[in-house]
């Protein structure tokens, strides 16, 4: 471990860390924005959920590197390429969670909402989605952690992230760079995970701690 390398390259490391956070967090957030309406649709119209879940299983089986490559003709060797691919994976993680979360709402709760005069939309926004929040955030946690770690694979098609430290460290046979990349990716992923655990506690104050 060469600490002098770390201090000399502080600004490079900081820039790569920010880039990795961007490539990891954005897909998970877009995934959240798309998976909630998709999951609501699948939970409402039951016929929609088996094909949706089957599609999700197949897409999730695609290796990340292969998906990045498949998107090159359309999106080039760009951040967009990696973001679109990781958004697809995030959807695969989150859609089943949104469906499971909505289905976990107990029938008496729905009936109580109906009895209180809640219409369908108000029931969804005011009762079902809040109760499904812990399960949805559970999916978001997996999506964000996976995206941060998978973003480093994008380096193989030239999309810059902390993965740069792996490739450069291999070419120069310089373990320090690889340690720094590994530690920062894991720390970044766990930090995002902690933020989401905090968000879940803040959003669902009624849940058992």
């Amino acid at each position, binding site marked *: 471990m060469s600490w002098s390398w770390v201090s000399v390259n502080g600004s490079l490391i900081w820039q790569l860390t920010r880039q990795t956070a961007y490539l990891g967090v954005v897909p998970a957030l877009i995934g959240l924005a798309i998976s909630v309406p998709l999951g609501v649709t699948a939970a409402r119209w039951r016929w929609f959920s088996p094909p949706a879940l089957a599609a999700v*299983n*197949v897409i*999730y*089986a*695609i*290796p*990340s*590197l*292969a*998906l990045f*490559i*498949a*998107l*090159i*003709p*359309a999106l080039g060797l760009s951040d967009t390429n990696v973001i679109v691919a990781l958004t697809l994976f995030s959807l695969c993680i989150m859609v*089943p969670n949104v469906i499971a979360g909505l289905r976990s709402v107990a029938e008496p709760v729905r009936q109580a909402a109906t009895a209180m005069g809640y219409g369908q939309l108000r029931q969804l926004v005011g009762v079902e989605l809040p109760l499904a929040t812990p399960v949805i955030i559970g999916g978001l*946690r*997996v999506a964000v*952690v*996976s995206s*941060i*770690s*998978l973003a*480093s*694979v994008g*380096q*193989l*098609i030239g999309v810059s992230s*902390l*993965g740069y*430290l*792996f*490739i450069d*460290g*291999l070419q120069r*046979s*310089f*373990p320090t760079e*690889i*340690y720094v*990349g*590994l530690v920062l*990716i*894991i720390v970044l*992923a*766990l930090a995002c*995970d902690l933020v989401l655990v905090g968000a879940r506690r803040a959003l669902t104050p009624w849940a058992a701690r």
Partner: protein
Amino acid sequence: MSFFTFAWDWVTQAANWHGPGSIPHQVLAHLGYSGLSLLVAALIAIPLGIAIGHTGRGAVFVVNLANAWRAIPTLGLLILLAVLLGFSFVTWLVPLVVLAIPPILVNTYEGVAGVDRGVKDAALGAGMTGWQQVTRVEVPIAMPLILVGLRTAAIFMVATATIAAYIGLGGLGRYIVDGLASDQYGPVAGGALLVIILAVAVLALFAGLSRLIIPAGLRRQGRSE
């Protein structure tokens, strides 16, 4: 041209189907690396998962592992070992096995630990020994989840073996890594398409396997994850 045209043009070239480094050769090599890692990981993770699920000891460790393993960047782990120890049998097999263990361990644990209390009591009441309870009741009931764990790990191995080409492993990743290094999109696209086909084939294999292995009474449950 789209990805599929590039990939198809390359895959259907007769020259790519003969000799060393040909498509059949690399498909077999890829299956070999993934299969060997999966086998070793399963031999470690399934007994361990059953033991932890049955006794409840070490459950906290497994639950935390479930969240943490996705954070490990596979590319970084592979490269680190290659730089520290040089490329060898050990430097690709050890990281692949390490990465395949968590999904198998976590799912096996959850399957065994999740067996209904009443069912366990019934097994005990019927006079089964601890060993019989595990092998005749808990493991069969946990089988759908054990298979989910194996499936997740198998698909993950196909993907990770591809990335391991970057540190010198053979298999389909060779086409991708060598193609990227020489700026030829043909083999890159072709290799990627073959890897996707292989991963989806593994998925289909496990769908078939679960029909064969999961007891009929559990099958409806087995489909939900």
